């Protein structure tokens, strides 16, 4: 962790700054003792979801409203719970690999990368450079795809229908590359413990380069629709503000944290895969509002393109699998490894008892942790802002509930 972020976090945790504390205290939700509303009888408890167009799946948010003003929220999760962590205890390390693709299904490649690297760390194996580069390319492509999906649905929540179709059109090109590479579009099982599943197909580099030239003007197209649109500015500026200190205290990571002015990206902070070899910027916001999070993600797409460009041009020759035993039996021990998924820090904590199956596997999903910040962000805002904020946190319920 850099000195700068250290300082921020210590302030968040130790300072007795009243406003700072109140924000966190408010976040401890007690629907009964929320402040006295304007008209007693007009206090509504509204159940938003699990079947609601703007909760991105099956999130259920219980809203306590005074008219349209939000007095408190409570997230009810678990509608998509599949017990992924428990399943891990009954599968071998190899067999469990495809399951992680089903957590954040919008960024399946990142999930696989995190899991494979965690197990590799446990085994003390390093993937060969070519595999590392392929991993970076695919992961960054997936980051773009995830951000595209986010942008489309977020804009749709705020009422702009058209960006959704534009982003889906362009996301299709990425999915085509995935499909050609590993046969799957959504739940891409691309990586193996110790390297990659497949060698790149003939013309992979060309496809990726074609995508880069195709996509560069498309980001500008999205931005012409939204970035300077007055309504978009009004809807997103100063909406769902969270300070850097609050964000750190709540464990928020990813673009949400960076938009609050904290320059914290695991690709730079604890470089994994081949990220230390590439030249890219970490976009940082200043206000921590919805608009900054939008800008940060747009810039991240551009930076991802920079990374992919470098990686494709410098991709080394060589093997794609490291030396991994046929039967994976890691030594007794535990490991926590985290990567920067599109939505934030995706961590795997694995306890090994020396057998072929993990003794315990715990996932730290970014959406789950970021979702905590919802209440802090939306208190005092209006119902319309709740959907905007849910959109801007960029949650995937498959990951929240696991």
């Amino acid at each position, binding site marked *: 962790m850099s000195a700068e972020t250290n300082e921020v976090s210590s302030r968040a945790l130790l300072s007795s700054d009243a406003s700072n504390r109140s924000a966190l205290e408010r976040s401890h939700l007690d629907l009964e003792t929320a402040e006295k509303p304007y008209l007693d*009888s007009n206090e509504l408890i509204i159940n938003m979801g699990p079947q609601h167009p703007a909760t991105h799946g099956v999130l259920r948010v219980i809203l306590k409203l005074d008219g349209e003003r939000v007095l408190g929220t409570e997230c009810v999760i678990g509608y998509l719970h599949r017990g992924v962590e428990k399943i891990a205890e009954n599968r071998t390390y190899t067999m469990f690999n495809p399951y992680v693709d089903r957590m954040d299904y919008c960024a399946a490649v990142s999930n696989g990368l995190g899991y494979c690297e965690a197990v590799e760390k446990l085994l003390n194996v390093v993937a060969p450079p070519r595999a590392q580069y392929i991993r970076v390319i695919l992961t960054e492509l997936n980051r773009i795809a995830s951000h595209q999906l986010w942008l489309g649905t977020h804009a749709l929540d705020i009422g702009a229908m058209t960006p959704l179709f534009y982003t889906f059109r362009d996301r299709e090109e990425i999915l085509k590359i995935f499909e050609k590479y590993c046969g799957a579009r959504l739940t891409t099982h691309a990586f193996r413990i110790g390297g990659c599943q497949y060698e790149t197909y003939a013309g992979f580099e060309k496809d990726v380069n074609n995508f880069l030239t195709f996509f560069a003007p498309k980001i500008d197209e999205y931005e012409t629709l939204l970035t300077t649109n007055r309504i978009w500015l009004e809807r997103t500026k100063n909406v769902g503000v969270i300070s850097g200190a609050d964000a750190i205290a709540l464990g928020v990571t990813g673009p949400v944290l960076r938009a609050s002015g904290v320059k914290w990206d695991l690709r730079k902070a604890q470089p994994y895969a081949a990220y230390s070899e590439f030249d890219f910027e970490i976009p940082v916001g200043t206000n921590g509002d919805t608009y900054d999070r939008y800008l940060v993600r747009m810039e991240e797409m551009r930076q991802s393109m920079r990374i992919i460009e470098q990686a494709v041009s410098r991709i080394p020759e060589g093997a794609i699998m490291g030396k991994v035993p046929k039967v994976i039996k890691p030594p007794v021990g535990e490991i926590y490894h985290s990567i920067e998924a599109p939505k934030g820090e995706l961590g795997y904590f694995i306890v090994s008892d020396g057998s072929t199956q993990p003794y315990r596997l715990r996932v730290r999903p970014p959406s789950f942790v970021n979702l905590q910040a919802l209440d802090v962000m939306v208190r005092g805002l209006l119902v319309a802002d709740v959907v905007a904020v849910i959109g801007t946190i960029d949650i995937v319920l498959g990951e929240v509930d696991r």
Partner: protein
Amino acid sequence: MNPALNSALSINSGMAPVATPWFFYALAGMAVLSGVFVITRRNAVHAALALIITLLSVAGLYLMLYAPFVAGVQIIVYAGGIMVLFLFVIMLVNIERSSKERAFNRMWPVGLAAAGALMVLFASAIVKGSHINDMFRDRLMPLPESTNTQQIASLLYGEAGRMGQYTFAFEIASLLLLVAILGAVIMTKKKI
């Protein structure tokens, strides 16, 4: 039909409504019937809807009296403005409770008796008035419909640089509205 009425109708013959009596009875019946609903419905929203029908019927009666501007004002201000306000307030206050309670207060027989007395008074006034002279029956002056709005405007605002007869009253009425707006805001806003 007496001559005065005849001449009144003949002046407006260009637009003499053919089925006038029927329209009148329909509108008047609707007005009175929904007036009854207003005061008997337990549910305030039903009462408000009935009142809207009454107001629109009365607007129709204004049209039949060649007062189109008043009819327009009636529709805009009453049906479009005041009644929306009423519905708004009904939704704000808790009507579920009040709709389960007694709809009438304890003194209702007294109130009914007083209203009955009022009705007798009106009836006797109308009967007497129409009995003594046929004033109500005879007089039905023609009013030019096409310049109705202009004439009202010249009474309210004046004409050709002169002040109208009701200009001061009009200004005072606007002051009254302003006071009402301020009063409503001050009373309903929690903190100014």
